[in-house]
């Protein structure tokens, strides 16, 4: 997309200029000293010098925010691809996965004026990002349990989203010219729906939600939400129900209410990635829409071209990437929480039924959450019949879980050895799938991937 002409960036204040310089020096130092990929450190320095830096850097550019429990990084990447039209438009993004304000200012610091920004946002920071970036589009994917020793529990989080989205109704302050914000929300997720209903302008997209257990209690009245087999849902006590959708996913087709169907052929596997792609495609259409109050339907003029562009994404920071090891293909998959693991098991079944062995790696470091009890929410029973190799820092928790799930597992201390062990037992030339949670995945990517 081309640079927005909504507002010209005003003369940046001296403080912001200093902050950006300091940020860039810090990032350079951080990288030179080999202490990181150099985004968060610089961002922190910049924000320390100028606490309003994020709003200064976001001013005058169309911004899309992407948040949710699962699929944030992938969807952000897809939306960037969808907006990069090959005619020279620059789209900036926090593509290193640093999804808190320090990462956002680092991503925006070097961006050309007016360039569109697609920002992945940690669920806990949505309110602050909406306030400071006056986004054109907010994309809400899904909400379920994740790292509960660290992040607020699901209902506290949904209440905070709802309050933040409700403030959009107040409109911008007097004299401030910003485009109206449109929310793209997953209508199949009752928690997302409850939050998004507070917003003035919502485009509802039905892309499914594999994990229902956190949404059984109605957030509106305390009644029970019932899900029918087709993905629709309603509370048995109040009127809270799935809103009418402006677009939805039917297998690999994106369908509009008028009956138009757009087939998606993606570079990434699995139904959950089709869901991410559908959300990204709708968000891309709305990012390209003209000024004025957004409607509630999906402008479909460019959909085929948008879908073709986001099909070019075939791995995201190593996720879903296949590497060659000992002449065999090893695919690295990330699953961080029960909903994510459930989606991965859907993918394994969709592709191969039950058969080849699988390597499972689980850590419980700070970024993963220190509490491993979520392992008992993951339906590992679905791996029965496959042989599994358990590895990672918390391989013993995993081994006990697998024993009670009826899955034969071998415990191997070193993750690289675990992959080799599984390759040794896997039949013929079949590819090997390796699934890890956050830091376990990063470990495997960095060690096995070499």
């Amino acid at each position, binding site marked *: 997309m081309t640079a927005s002409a909504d507002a010209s960036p005003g003369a940046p204040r001296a403080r912001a200029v200093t902050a950006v310089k300091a940020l860039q020096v810090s990032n350079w130092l951080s990288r030179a000293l080999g202490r990181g990929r150099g985004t968060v450190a610089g961002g922190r320095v910049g924000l320390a010098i100028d606490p309003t830096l994020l709003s200064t850097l976001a001013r005058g550019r169309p911004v899309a925010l992407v948040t949710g429990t699962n699929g944030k990084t992938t969807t952000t990447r897809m939306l960037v691809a969808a907006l990069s039209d090959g005619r020279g438009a620059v789209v900036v993004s926090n593509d290193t996965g640093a999804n808190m304000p320090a990462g956002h200012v680092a991503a925006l610091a070097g961006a050309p004026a007016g360039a569109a920004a697609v920002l992945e946002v940690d669920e806990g920071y949505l309110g602050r990002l909406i306030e400071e970036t006056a986004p054109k589009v907010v994309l809400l994917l899904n909400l379920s*349990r994740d790292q*509960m*020793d660290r992040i607020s*529990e*699901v*209902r*506290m989080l949904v209440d905070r989203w709802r309050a933040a989205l409700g403030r959009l109704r107040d409109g911008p302050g007097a004299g401030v010219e910003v485009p109206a914000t449109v929310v793209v929300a997953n209508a199949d997720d009752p928690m997302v729906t409850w939050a998004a209903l507070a917003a003035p302008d919502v485009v509802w997209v039905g892309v499914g939600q594999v994990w229902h*257990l956190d949404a*059984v*209690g109605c957030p509106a009245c*305390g009644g*029970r939400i019932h899900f029918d087999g087709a993905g629709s849902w309603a509370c*048995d006590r109040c009127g809270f129900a799935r809103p009418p959708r402006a677009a939805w996913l039917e297998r690999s087709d994106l369908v509009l209410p008028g009956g138009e169907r757009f087939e998606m052929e993606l570079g990434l596997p699995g139904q959950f990635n089709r869901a991410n792609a559908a959300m990204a495609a709708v968000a891309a259409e709305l990012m390209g829409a003209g000024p004025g109050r957004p409607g509630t339907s999906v402008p479909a003029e460019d959909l085929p071209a948008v879908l073709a562009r986001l099909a070019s994404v075939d791995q995201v920071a190593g996720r879903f990437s296949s590497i060659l090891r000992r002449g065999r293909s090893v695919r690295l998959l990330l699953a961080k929480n029960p909903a994510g693991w459930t989606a991965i098991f859907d993918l394994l079944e969709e592709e191969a039924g039950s058969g080849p062995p699988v390597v499972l790696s689980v850590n419980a470091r700070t970024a993963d959450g*220190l*509490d*491993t*009890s*979520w*392992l*008992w*929410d993951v339906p590992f029973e679905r791996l029965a019949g496959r042989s599994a190799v358990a590895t990672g820092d918390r391989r*013993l*928790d995993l*081994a*006990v*879980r697998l*024993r*009670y799930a009826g899955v034969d597992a071998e*415990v191997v201390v070193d993750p690289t050895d675990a992959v080799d062990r599984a390759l040794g037992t896997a039949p013929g030339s079949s590819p090997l799938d390796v699934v890890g949670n956050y830091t376990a995945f990063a470990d495997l990517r960095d060690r096995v991937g070499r």
Partner: protein
Amino acid sequence: MTSGSARRGLTIAVVYPDLLGTYGDGGNALVLTRRATWRGIDAELVQADSGSPLPGADIYCLGGGEDGPQVRAAEALVADGELHRAVDRGAVVLGVCAGFQLLGHSFPDSVDRPHPGLGLLDVSTRKGTGSRAVGELVASPTDEAPRLSGGRPIPWLTGFENHGGVTTVGPGARPLARVVRGVGNGGGSGTEGAWQGKVLGCYLHGPLLARNVALADLLLGWALSPTAEPADLAPLDDVDEAALRDERLSAAGAPGPGLWQRLRSLVRRPGT
């Protein structure tokens, strides 16, 4: 259930997994069910959602939950009445975290008002003044802790706690264990959990019974016994479970007891 069928088979119910299932606590009932069937005891696992009457069962497992659902679960269980009837006829009840709190006389609701609980355990919970208790929890059994079959003591307990409550144990119940690492019941008591008859509650999840299989066998022994003395159960090959316990106890800085308890349980293992 009827008392006549208890010897032949067990029904193990997860109470309201739609409201009280936050911390993988469904795993407790799965561990109980598997450990029964591995010993040739028929066991049926029932997920008892909050929308329906609570079914009859031999063991009821209540898990953790957020404030609102905890209040709804307590109200529904009082209105249903089955859990009280089950305890009267000798059923076993396990409550973890929010499930533990609501078994007591009162617990704080989402705005910190005391909300009435089920009164099946003589404990009361109020909101703590400090930050939430989050982290590994290790506790050693007190002299007042329940005994395994043959009078054997339960081993050290390991788990993960995540709660903001302070629970006071009244004279009708006894504390389950003394805190070695972590917070537990809090309020300066130094204790963790409580038990009374065949009702047992604590803050340990992880889940509790996967990390502490001796406790799982205690609950199964209680369910299979018409008296307060737990039935004797055949030993199982718990290599994975023992390895996990040792690793967790050492990770929490309590290296000795894991090994000690393991040796002792090997020496004193009955019925082999």
